[in-house]
């Protein structure tokens, strides 16, 4: 517009005004016709949100029941791509799988979530630990529920891991080519128990204190490395330098033990366990998905080694 005016200075004053008038009129006219059309168009567009750019940027394919899109639904999803697009028809049978591996993983997620929330309220010090738990119980909104869920999920996870291992053994799923993954699984079982055990001390109550005392007292008797263990003396083990001291950061269960168990519980073991989990899941896929249900094999079909 400013430019128009500038130009107008050189030309006819009246003409300029006319042109401005005409231009404005045209603009108004275009608004009158375009707006309703665009609005209609927009409504049409919004009727199917799956076609919007925002939607398609997130979901890269349609969600209808075509086999292609079903497969894409799994493969293009970062959370779901652990799964193959298609699996053995009987592998969805719960009676075979028991679903314990998945439940364990789900519980791990629940524990991580509740655990992080609990960490907001907890200080791993002798003075505050017990008070913080009381505070959680009595003051924090949903604090009690949070703590209960964390605790019970931990117990449930131990049971789920055991059952998972039980199922894997019974279906012979550790056999070739899954030997290594079984080993990863055994390690994960150990870490699950250690996670639970290290968490036991954190409320700093009698229950945890004595459970951990009993537990770590065994470490005294470690052969060679414990001061009460076989040959420990000969290697110069005392209560102040043996493996138990290393575990507790002291000769008794005290502030250092609390801190160590907190760090193992919240940082050390979860990281290691997560890494192992990734390997575990990866290997499940790479070893050919879950083992079964496979067609039964007959003795007669076994190819004897030479």
């Amino acid at each position, binding site marked *: 517009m400013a430019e128009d005016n500038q130009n107008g200075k050189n030309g006819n004053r009246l003409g300029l005004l006319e042109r401005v008038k005409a231009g404005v009129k045209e603009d108004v006219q275009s608004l009158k016709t375009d707006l309703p059309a665009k609005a209609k168009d927009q409504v049409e567009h919004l009727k199917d949100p799956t076609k919007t750019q925002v939607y398609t940027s997130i979901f890269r394919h349609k969600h209808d029941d075509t086999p292609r899109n*079903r*497969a894409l639904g*799994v493969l293009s999803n970062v959370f*779901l791509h652990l*799964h193959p697009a*298609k699996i053995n*028809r009987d592998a*969805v049978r719960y*009676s*075979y799988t028991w*679903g314990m591996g998945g*439940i364990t993983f*789900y*519980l791990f997620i629940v524990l991580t979530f509740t655990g992080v929330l609990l960490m907001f309220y907890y200080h791993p010090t002798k003075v505050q630990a017990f008070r913080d738990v009381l505070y959680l*119980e009595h003051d924090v909104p949903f604090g*009690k529920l949070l703590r*209960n*869920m964390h605790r*019970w999920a931990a117990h*449930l996870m131990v*049971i789920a891991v055991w*059952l998972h291992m039980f199922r894997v*053994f*019974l*279906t*012979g*799923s550790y*056999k*070739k080519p*899954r*030997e290594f993954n*079984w080993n990863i699984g*055994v390690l994960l*079982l150990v870490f699950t*128990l250690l996670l639970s055990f290290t968490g*036991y001390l954190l409320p700093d*109550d*009698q*229950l945890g*204190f*004595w*459970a951990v005392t009993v*537990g770590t*007292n065994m*470490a*005294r008797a*470690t052969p060679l490395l414990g001061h009460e*263990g*076989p*040959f420990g003396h*000969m290697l110069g083990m005392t209560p102040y330098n043996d493996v138990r001291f290393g575990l507790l950061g002291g000769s*008794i269960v005290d502030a250092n033990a609390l801190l160590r168990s907190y760090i193992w519980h919240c940082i050390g073991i979860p990281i290691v366990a997560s890494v192992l989990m990734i390997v575990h899941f990866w290997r499940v896929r790479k070893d050919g998905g879950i*083992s*079964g249900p*496979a*067609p*039964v*094999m007959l003795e007669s079909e*076994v190819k004897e*080694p030479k």
Partner: protein
Amino acid sequence: MDWRQLWEIASAPDNVPIVGMIPLLAFYIYLAWKQAKANDELIGELEASPAMAKTHHRKSWPFRPGWSKEVHVWPFLLRIEFLAAMIVTIILMVWSITLSAPLEEPANPNLTMNPAKAPWYFLGLQEMLVYFDPWIAGVVMPTLIIIGLMVIPYIDTNPLGSGYYTWKQRKFAIGTFLFGFIVLWISMIIIGTFIRGPGWQWFWPGQTWDHNRLIYEVNRDLPDLFGIASNWAKAVFGAIVVGGYYLVGGFVAHGLFRRYNPKDYKRMSLLQYSIMMFFLLTMVGLPAKMLLRLAWHIKYVWITPWFNV
């Protein structure tokens, strides 16, 4: 019958998982057994008629030609996974609302708890403390369990039974595992939870946990039974007994294994076979030692200046 005592034990918040685990385990064993039975029957049939073996789809579930052999993960698997997640969430929430996690008195090193129990999943090991010195029960045994579990895939040479439930084709493997898991691990936990009361004494279910109960028990060492007094003699004697156990037991086991499991025996290399034998004998050694302790009050078999077994 002291029902109240029983209820007190069973309803202790930290014991509830165990109480829940027992029926859960029973259910899953039943589930596995049912499928194993169906598969075993199918195997029997197929072995009987090679013709059928050629055409059969080889699963105990019904199948019709034309049904797809593979299904889409989405939605057929994921719907089950989501459902499972929901059910677990529900269980967890209800459990958390109705039952509070235990919180006892602030830690007090001067006040010993009686009984002082480890977390329930370690009670099997704690129970072992009765029969073995801590270095075995607390250190050697867990290590052996872990290693033992890890070597399983490498010593199990049986190619059958991979990916389906069966009993017929894997009698030895499954029997051994059930023995280890159910008898030695789970039942020890149950004993540790329900049976072991104050002073880690044996209380039958329904017996009152009397803190003042005294029992009379004199534990002897095996060498003493034979009147061996000298320390060196004891050490040598113990070594002989333990070594003897492994040798004689190994020989007996060898005889049995060779006779009843000839194919596996044939398939196994020497290393595989000796590792299996070591773990098998060690595992059987546990109840043997327990029996010695419970029936004859024998504390140690092998006494040396550095360690006792």
